[in-house]
């Protein structure tokens, strides 16, 4: 790393705070349409973090699949159930406070663990290329790859079959 690294990490931290902020808005805002927009920002921010982690291919996939496809689906679903987004109806249930308590509990357990754990970091960080990834997918991981493809296909057919109105 050169002397430019601090600047990069500043950008990274900014990105992390953006992601966190957008995620908080996503889960807490009453208007589901806006929640979806903030979810898009969260996902874009995560894609940005992937870039900084030198996982370019994953970043592109994140944008292509999450932002391009899943977000479109979500916004469509929000739109199709538009009557459910009445601002007068409460969007959160009674588990708000219990949920928060659970959250605090889990973080109280997890964060010290993270801090205490003896992470053995590498001297030179790993990086890989899309070509290596492709080889891995087609070599070592070809079986899971095919399974996932099958799952995706089944899910697609299932989604179409489920969402169709019976005629």
């Amino acid at each position, binding site marked *: 790393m*050169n*002397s*430019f690294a*601090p*600047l990069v990490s500043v950008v990274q931290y900014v990105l992390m705070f953006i992601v966190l902020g957008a995620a908080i808005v996503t889960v807490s805002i009453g*208007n589901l*349409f*806006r929640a979806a*927009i903030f979810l*898009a920002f969260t996902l*874009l921010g995560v894609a940005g973090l992937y870039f900084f982690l030198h996982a*370019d*291919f994953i*970043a*592109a*996939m994140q*944008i*292509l699949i999450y*932002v*391009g*496809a899943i*977000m*479109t689906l979500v*916004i*469509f679903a929000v*739109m199709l159930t538009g009557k459910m987004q009445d601002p007068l109806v409460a969007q959160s249930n009674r588990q708000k406070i219990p949920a928060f308590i659970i959250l605090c509990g889990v973080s109280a357990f997890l964060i010290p663990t993270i801090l205490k754990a003896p992470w053995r970091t590498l001297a030179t960080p790993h990086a890989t*290329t*899309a*070509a290596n990834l492709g080889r891995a997918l087609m070599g070592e991981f070809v079986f899971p790859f095919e399974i996932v493809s099958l799952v995706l296909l089944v899910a697609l057919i299932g989604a179409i079959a489920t969402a169709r109105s019976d005629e």
Partner: protein
Amino acid sequence: MDQLFVNLKHSILIFAGNFLPEWAVILISILISVTAIAVFGPVTMMYLTLLERKFVGRIQNRFGPNRVGKWGLLQPLADGVKMLTKEDIVPKGADHFAHFLAPVAIVIPALLVFAVVPFGRNMVAVDLSIGILFFLALSSTTTIWIFVAAWASRNKFSLLGGLRSVAQMVSYEIPMVLSVVPVLMVVGSFSTVAIVEAQSGWNWFVLTPWGLIGFVLFFLTGVAEVNRTPFDLPEGESEIVAGFHTEYSGMKFALFYMAEFMNSFTISAIVSTVYLGGWQGPWLPGWLWLLIKSYALILVMMWFRGTLPRFRVDQLMGFAWKFLLPLALLNIFAAGVWLAFARPVNYLLSAIIVALALFILYFANRPDMPKKRVYRYAVE
């Protein structure tokens, strides 16, 4: 000449390096690239509007703008001033936040994709290893902002335009991605720079059988992705007023417009990069070659606009799914064959495959195709 801008930047950096720390020099380097793109994008867009109006005007036997400045050269500025001073109207029922956000957010990917366009030798802002994928991914995000704009406007025409836009862009993304795959197979890299390097010495991919088909596919789907005639259904003014930007005025509308034009420029630039050899070309400097090629493609887009009526929704979808998609798949096969065989044979084989593919698709789509009619006259 070829390295004019590169050398310019380089000498600035060396000059700055004399008295600034290293990180500041890198920062300056980034800033120079970002500023160049941030200036180049909007200026290109402004003058593309003028170019389009002049070109289409001449096609239609009229002058086009010629009042503001010599040959109307100041017209874009006048338009900009007008846009800025126009009243910004937000419909009463609109989702103000999303209504504001959509036009702003749509410009960002349009500007970001400039980063991977290789304007010339060493003239790419970031040589990403996934350049093409980056471009495809970012251009796919445009969809949701268009849809957000449509939904936030609370207008039925906007909504129809938004729905059309999503359906169209999602459908055309698939043949678009598939039409680039042959090039990726042959080059073995996503990097735009590597793709251009692979086409040096007149080895333009468009000159191969699969490349020709891929070029046409990529260009057509690109035209569809940026919502231009004959695929401009999301804003089809004769049916749904102005589609997703019906309720936008002033600068917000200008931002949509800007995104559309910058996208059409980047699409042209990427198409020329992937299939037309990018900045490769004799005599002239590389960046000029890229500009010539992209502007030629943009002129073809404008030529489409001046000539063609638009598709209907179902025909648009049918065209994407029944023709472009299978053709793109068969084209990948043709490229594979091209790779597998030696030089003279592979041209022949892939040409045969491509011709066969076109032939099959033509006959498969025949029932849906319009037919010529013969007219008769009433007997006296």
